[in-house]
């Protein structure tokens, strides 16, 4: 059983600041972290390893400094780590990124066939949720996104049963390996690393792969291989700075409640209609 977990090193979005004059992102001093959504997938991969036995390889595409995130993943229990890094990858959009990552997964599969690829549901910097499906489609793997639970994995028959979040409910799906899984947030909690894994992670010799090595075509990565272009980046119109404070006629809870409801309905007239319709229907 070989599991590949794709992770991305991202700036901690809670600490991003925008330069007031140039309107650009100030990355200086912003700590880099493993994309939080990836941790749910990494933990699930490690749980499968604990349960049925598996080799877990973490893979990331990024600049050399993304090494930090790979070592972190190793310290949590991953067995191997691959850093896919090449200047030619710079400026890749999701189509080019999924192509580049797929070339690395195929390279990994040459020496040890891959049964499951885990990806994060989406990243906190790009928020696209498109790279996982892109990889699944390219590899011809069954695509299982927004998974809330892995109910069963039978390594002999290579069958897996999962619960998948859909808009109106939960789908219970049964499929065959190989598959690509993205876990929904909040479905597990990332473990603490063990001391010996921590030492192993520090000493581990990372595999650093280039575009040439994985055989990704030059014209299909980076800006050249990306159908989308960013034509404009701008700061959203700031919302009215502070809350509009509700002032009641009298200093009683009743007066405050009445004033609050008036303010809500004034701000959201449609909501008032919906609520009244709902009440009229006797719900």
């Amino acid at each position, binding site marked *: 059983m070989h599991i590949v977990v794709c992770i991305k090193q991202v700036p901690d*979005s809670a600490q*991003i600041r925008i330069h007031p004059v*140039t*309107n*650009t*992102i100030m990355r200086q001093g912003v700590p880099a972290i493993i994309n939080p959504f990836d941790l749910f997938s990494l933990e699930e991969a490690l749980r499968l390893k604990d349960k049925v036995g598996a080799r877990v390889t973490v893979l990331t595409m990024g600049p050399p400094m993304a090494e930090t995130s790979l070592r972190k993943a190793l310290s949590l229990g991953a067995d191997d780590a691959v850093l896919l890094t090449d200047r030619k990858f710079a400026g890749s959009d*999701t*189509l080019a990124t999924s192509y580049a990552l797929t070339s690395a997964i195929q390279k990994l599969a040459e020496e040890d066939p891959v049964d499951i690829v885990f990806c994060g549901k989406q990243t906190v*910097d*790009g*928020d*696209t*949720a*498109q790279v996982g*499906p892109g990889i*699944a*489609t390219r590899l011809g793997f*069954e*695509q*299982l*996104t*927004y998974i809330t639970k892995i109910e069963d994995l039978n390594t002999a028959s290579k069958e897996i049963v999962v619960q998948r*979040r*859909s*808009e*109106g*409910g*939960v*789908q219970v*799906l*049964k*499929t065959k390996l190989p598959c690509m899984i993205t876990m929904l947030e*909040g479905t597990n909690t990332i473990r603490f690393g063990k001391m010996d894994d921590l030492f192993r992670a520090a000493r581990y010799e990372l595999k650093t792969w280039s575009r040439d090595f994985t055989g990704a075509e030059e014209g299909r990565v980076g800006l050249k291989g990306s159908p*989308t*272009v*960013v*034509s*404009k*980046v*701008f*700061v*959203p119109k700031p*919302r009215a700075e*502070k*809350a*509009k*404070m509700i002032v009641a006629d009298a200093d009683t*809870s*009743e007066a*405050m409640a009445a*004033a609050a*409801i008036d303010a*809500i309905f004034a701000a*959201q007239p*449609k*909501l008032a209609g919906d*609520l*009244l319709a709902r*009440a*009229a229907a006797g719900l």
Partner: protein
Amino acid sequence: MSEPSKPQGRKFQLPEHLKIYKNVWVIVEQERGIVHSVSLELLGEARKLADKLGVEVGAVVLGAESPDLNRICGDAIGYGADIVYKVTDPALADYRTDPYCRVMTDVVNTHKPEIVLLGATTLGRDLAGAIATTLATGLTADCTELDIYADNRSLAATRPTFGGTLLCTIQTLAYRPQMATVRPRVMAMPERDDARTGRVIEIQPDLREEDIVTKVLNFIADREQNEAQLAFADIIVSAGKGLGKVENMKLVFDLAKVLGAEVGVTRPLVQAGWATNDRQVGQTGKTVRPKLYIAAGISGAIQHRVGMEKSDLILAINTDPNATIFDFAHLGLVGDALKILPALTDAFGRRLSVNRMAG
């Protein structure tokens, strides 16, 4: 306000062989006969884009043949479609990536739309990511604004990035179709026009169930579950440590009941055992986007804020006039939540029941 960083693209001219791609499409999301409202919002948006381009709106409705599906095709026309591509096969009854992706890839390659829009839902984002890969074209995720650049008729898709701190406008240049998923409840819901007419093109893709690896064993509808469904709630009443003690949670549930709302909590309340973690809103809990979010006794820590700040309307109730939550709530009420919550429950109850008698 805007500081164009790289104005490349607007002057770009489309290669001749891609000019045969015409019309604006919406992939209508239906699950078990229920259409997701974002699909109707998108038909309204597609109408506007198509009118700017002088082309038609196409709606793709996929599923197993049923009266529900025919009704949905009629709805699609009423909400703005000129052409409905009704794609039916028993294997399309439930959403599964592989058959949906294969069918959509064929339909797009046959009819060549210039723009394909989907809702940024679990279905839409799953499917869009797959077909953009088979079609090898550009896809912009989770858009909040769509427009056409008149210079070259290309789609300008605007979306938040870096957790909403920045907006960026993205274009797909020398590739067709141009694809985008669009965030639910951002675009206005169009009025249904029963007088509208359109044509329905029936497509039977001839799928074989034995070729499809993934099987749907069961579907557990949310309404049959006891778990809180915060992510899909229209109204959420949330509580923080300001409520003082666990007994006061009743005040929150009472108000939620009158409003048909869900109850949310901050992380400390889950840690204190006042509520289960399916109710936690914030960085390590759920991200919610209701029409109304009432925050009672919540100070407004960043961990909570990132999970709820995109709500349409936030009403904050807090005794401390300097609480952080008043920096990003839309409406603020300085006062004791323990007294105001029951007053709100009474007042809402009265207003809504008055209407029931009148109606």
